[in-house]
C-alpha cells in the first residue's frame, strides 16, 4: 500500500534530552492514526518533525512521498496543523485570522472570502465571524483553530491534543468535527492525544509512545491479541444455567471460567471464532441464552498494559 506518511527511524535530541528516539511507522491515506502517550512522551515533537518545521537529528520522514526536511514548503501546502494551544491572533476577528492564514497558504485573494465564510459556517462560527478572537470561549477558540488548520483544504490534518482543556460539550463538538473530516472529507488525520476514550472512538490504529519511543502500534484488536491470549466473553441465561452447561463449555479447548454469577458466566476464550462453539455447547445442554457479548478490551486497558510492560522492560 502507498503510505501517505512514512517515518524511518526518526530521532530528535535537545542537548542531552532525547525527545524522539528512533521511531518508525506509516499511515495510510484516509486513516485516523492516533499517537497516545503521557505529557513529555514526544508527541508534539513528532508533529513538528513530520511537518518539517523541526529538523531531525537522525532518520527521515516522508509525507506524500517527499522528504519533509528537504521539501517542507510542498509538504506544508498540503497539511493542516492544530497546535496544542489555539495560537490565534486575539486582537484580530475570527474572519481576519482565517483570511491571513488563507493568504499565507496561497489561496487567491478572490477566493478567500468565500472559503472563510464556508469554513466558519462548518465550525458554527458564522455569527461570531466579525468578533475578536480574544473574546471567544475556549471551545470557540479551538473550533476557530481547527478552521485555520482546514482553511486550505489539506490532505493530512495533524491534531495535537484537540480537546485538551475543553468542557464536555465543546469536546464533543470538536470530536464530531474530527470524525466528519475523516469520514466525509476523506482526510488523513494524525491525532495526538492522551484522551483515550476519544482515541478509541476515532482511531483505526494507534501508536503508544513513552519517553520518545513507540512501545506498541496497531489496531485495538491487534494490540489486545498481542497482550492477552484470551478474550472475555459474557454469557447470560434466562435463568440459572442447567447442570452440565458449564462442564460442556469448559470442555472446549482454550476456554476458561473467569467468574460465575446466578444467571451469567464470564469466560475467557482464546479467539473470537470460538464463540459459536460456546453457544452450541450451552444450547446443547438446554441452556436458554439471552445474551452473548464478547467484551473487547478498552483502549484504556490496552494503553495501561502497554505502559506497564514498557516500565517493566526498562
Amino acid at each position, binding site marked *: 500500500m502507498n503510505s501517505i506518511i512514512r517515518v524511518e527511524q526518526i530521532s530528535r535530541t535537545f542537548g542531552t534530552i532525547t525527545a524522539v528516539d528512533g521511531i518508525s511507522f506509516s499511515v495510510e491515506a484516509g486513516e485516523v492514526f492516533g499517537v497516545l502517550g503521557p505529557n513529555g512522551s514526544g508527541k508534539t515533537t513528532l508533529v513538528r518533525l513530520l511537518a518539517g518545521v523541526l529538523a531531525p537529528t537522525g532518520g527521515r520522514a516522508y509525507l506524500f512521498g517527499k522528504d519533509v526536511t528537504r521539501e517542507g514548503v510542498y509538504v506544508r501546502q498540503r497539511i493542516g496543523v492544530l497546535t496544542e494551544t489555539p*495560537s490565534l491572533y486575539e*486582537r484580530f476577528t475570527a474572519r481576519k485570522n482565517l483570511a491571513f492564514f488563507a493568504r*499565507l497558504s496561497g489561496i487567491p485573494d478572490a477566493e478567500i472570502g468565500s472559503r472563510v465564510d464556508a469554513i466558519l459556517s462548518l465550525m458554527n462560527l458564522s455569527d461570531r465571524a466579525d468578533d475578536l478572537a480574544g473574546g471567544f470561549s475556549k471551545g470557540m477558540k479551538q473550533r476557530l483553530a481547527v478552521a485555520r488548520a482546514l482553511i486550505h483544504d489539506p490532505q493530512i490534518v495533524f491534531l495535537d491534543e484537540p480537546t485538551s482543556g475543553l468542557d464536555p460539550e465543546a469536546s464533543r463538538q470538536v470530536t464530531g468535527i474530527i470524525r466528519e473530516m475523516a469520514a466525509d472529507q476523506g482526510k488523513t488525520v494524525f491525532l495526538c492525544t492522551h484522551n483515550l476514550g476519544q482515541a478509541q472512538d476515532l482511531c483505526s490504529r494507534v501508536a503508544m509512545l513513552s519517553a520518545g519511543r513507540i512501545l506498541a502500534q496497531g489496531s485495538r484488536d491487534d494490540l489486545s491479541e498481542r497482550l492477552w491470549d484470551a478474550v472475555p466473553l459474557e454469557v447470560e441465561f434466562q435463568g440459572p444455567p442447567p447442570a452440565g452447561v458449564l462442564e460442556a463449555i469448559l470442555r472446549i479447548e482454550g476456554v476458561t471460567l473467569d467468574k460465575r454469577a446466578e444467571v451469567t458466566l464470564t469466560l475467557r476464550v482464546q479467539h473470537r471464532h470460538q464463540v459459536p462453539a460456546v453457544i452450541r455447547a450451552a444450547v446443547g445442554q438446554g441452556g436458554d441464552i439471552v445474551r452473548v457479548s464478547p467484551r473487547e478490551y478498552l483502549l484504556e486497558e490496552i494503553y495501561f498494559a502497554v505502559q506497564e510492560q514498557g516500565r517493566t522492560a526498562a
Partner: protein
Amino acid sequence: MNRQIIRALAEKDIAEVAQNRIAISGAVILSVIFAVVFPLLITQMPILLPESDQPAFDDLQDLIPPQLIDELADLSPRQLPIVLILGYLMAPLFLILPLMLACIIAAEAFVGEKERKTLEALLYTPATDGELFVGKVLAALIPAIMYTWVNFLVFTLVTNLAGYPVMGRFWFPTPSWLALMVVVVPAVALLGVAVTVIISTRVRTFMEAYQVSGALVLVILVLVVAQSVGLLFLSPLVAVLVGIGFFALDAVLIVAGIRTFSRSELIARV
C-alpha cells in the same frame, strides 16, 4: 519569494502593531515633540529671548561648524539660532524617529509573536523562512521610514510657517536634511530592525526586546554630540557616507540575523 505571502505577513504585523497602545502612544509622543514642539520652540526663541542677550548669541557662534561660517554669515542674530539649530544641529537627532519606530515594530513582529504564542501556527504555514524574515523586516522598515518622512513634512511646515516672521522666507529643508531623509533614515531604520532580530532570539517579551534595542539611541546621540562639538559636519556628502556606513553595518547584522532565523531554531524555542 512569493509576494502575496510577504505582503500578507507585513500587513498582519503592521495591523498588530497598530493595536499596540504602547507603540502608538510612543510614536505619537515622539511626533509631537520632534515635529511640532521643537521647531515651534526654536522658531519662537528669538521672539521670546531678548535680542540684547549677546552672551547667548556668542555661545551659538561657537557652535557653528567651520564649514558653515560663510553660509551663515549673512544671517541676523535673530535668524541664526533658527537656521543653526533646526537646519543643522537638529538633523541627526531626528534619526531617533526611524530608529525607535523600527525597534518597536520589529520587537512586536519578532518577539511579540513568540510572547503571545502565535508563532507556532505561523511556522506550520507554507511560507519559507526567507519569506517570513523579509515580511517581518518590511513590516518594521516601511512604516518606520514613512513615519519619519511624514514627521519630516510636518517639521518642514512648522519650521517654515512658524519661522516666517523672523526668516522672511521659506528656507527649509536644507540639502543635508534631504540627504539624511533619503539615505540615512532607511539605513538607520534597518539598523533598528537588524539589531532587534538578533536580540529577539535571546529575549522572551516585547518590552525586553524594545528596551534592549532602545539602547541604539546612543548611536544617534554620538552623531548629535559629534556634530555639536564640531567633530562631524553632516554635509550632504557626509550624510550619504554615513548612510552607506550604516547600510554596511546593516548588511553584516542582517546576515547574522538570517542565520538565527531558521524555522527549526525558532520552533525549538517556542
